[in-house]
């Protein structure tokens, strides 16, 4: 148990170290490898050392299932990342960001039935993890489609109000679930409704934003995925997930702002400006 916590600390430190090296041209490649090493360590020790609350380790049958799933993901992820054309890389990053968001969404969705409704903090992180993960997933998929030329821009003045309304309804539902006092089983329909609303919001959020602004949006959605992972980390009290997630959330947000600045635009301009301005306003 102590060994597991220690490995999470090492993994978290490797993330920080890797990110630091990644921000300097000459050390960037090494930084990426360090961060990957931290991730590998975290995955390996979780698989081998994680114990349930009752103290039993992960059963052998489950270990094999997990290894098979990791094997499938690794092979597909590796081959696609190696084979893809250089020009198609931005959309691939967006696609991988979407898969991360989907994983966060699914983890929060599946942990909801086990939630202790009297522990408001734990329910809150579960709901937030699902909402943010779902928005990152569907938003990144739309960004991927746009960069790949499969999805066009849809702009209309009405959309701004639809988006705001949808956001209010989504958070309203989440707050109601938090305070309704019902059991997770009673709220089963609500969690799925919340998922659908969040997915829809992600689509509508990215839809009106112009293609040239996509890298900025992907960076923003990337920080969403980080925050969603951190929320899931709070469900499991997992320090590596919390630290890694928040780190990406913060770094991603700053990176988004820096990218906007490099393009001589403000973040608000990218998100809001897209509703009013036509293609001519794109820098």
């Amino acid at each position, binding site marked *: 148990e102590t060994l597991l916590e220690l490995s999470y600390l090492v993994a978290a430190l490797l993330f920080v170290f890797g990110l630091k090296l990644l921000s300097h041209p000459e050390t960037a490649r090494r*930084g*990426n490898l360090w961060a990957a090493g931290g991730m590998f360590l975290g995955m390996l020790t979780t698989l081998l050392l994680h114990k349930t609350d009752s103290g039993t380790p992960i059963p052998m*049958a489950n270990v094999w299932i997990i290894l098979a799933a990791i094997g499938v993901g690794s092979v597909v*992820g590796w081959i696609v990342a190696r084979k893809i054309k250089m020009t198609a890389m931005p959309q691939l990053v967006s696609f991988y960001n979407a898969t991360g968001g989907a*994983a966060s969404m699914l983890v929060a969705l599946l942990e909801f039935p086990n939630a202790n409704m009297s522990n408001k903090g734990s329910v809150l992180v579960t709901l937030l993890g699902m909402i943010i993960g779902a928005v990152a997933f569907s938003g990144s998929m739309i960004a991927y489609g746009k960069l790949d030329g499969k999805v066009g821009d849809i702009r209309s003045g009405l959309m701004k109000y639809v988006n705001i309304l949808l956001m209010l309804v989504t958070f309203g539902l989440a707050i109601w679930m938090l305070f309704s006092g019902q059991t997770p089983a009673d709220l089963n329909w609500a969690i799925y409704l919340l998922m659908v609303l969040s997915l829809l919001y992600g689509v509508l959020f990215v839809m009106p934003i112009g293609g040239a602004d996509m890298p900025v949006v992907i960076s923003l959605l990337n920080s969403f995925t980080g925050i969603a992972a951190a929320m899931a980390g709070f469900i499991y009290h997992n320090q590596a997930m919390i630290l890694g997630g928040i*780190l990406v959330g913060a770094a991603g947000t700053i990176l988004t702002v820096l990218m906007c600045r490099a393009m001589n635009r403000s973040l608000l301009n990218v998100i809001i400006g897209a509703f009013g301005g036509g293609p001519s306003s794109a820098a």
Partner: protein
Amino acid sequence: MEAILQFFFTYKEAIFIIALSVFLGIEVISNVPSVLHTPLMSGANAISGVIIIGGIILVGHADASRLSLELVLGILAVIFGTLNVVGGFVVTDRMLEMFKKKKK
């Protein structure tokens, strides 16, 4: 006010971790040159794949003796998480490889 203080006290460790990691995240990348924006974004994206640990724990708890919705979606979460991690790091490596060649 009372409720806010109570909330802070209950979750003080979490709040400390959040505050410090936010600061750390901002500090670590604040001086990045703009040519590295995209690789850094891609690298951060790979790190956000830590959710894979949650997926492993989730499937680790699931009842593997029968095929349930929980098991199937959990396995899907692990596959998605691995895609994010492996794909993310490999893509970042390729970007940086290209970057190096260009500089030479």
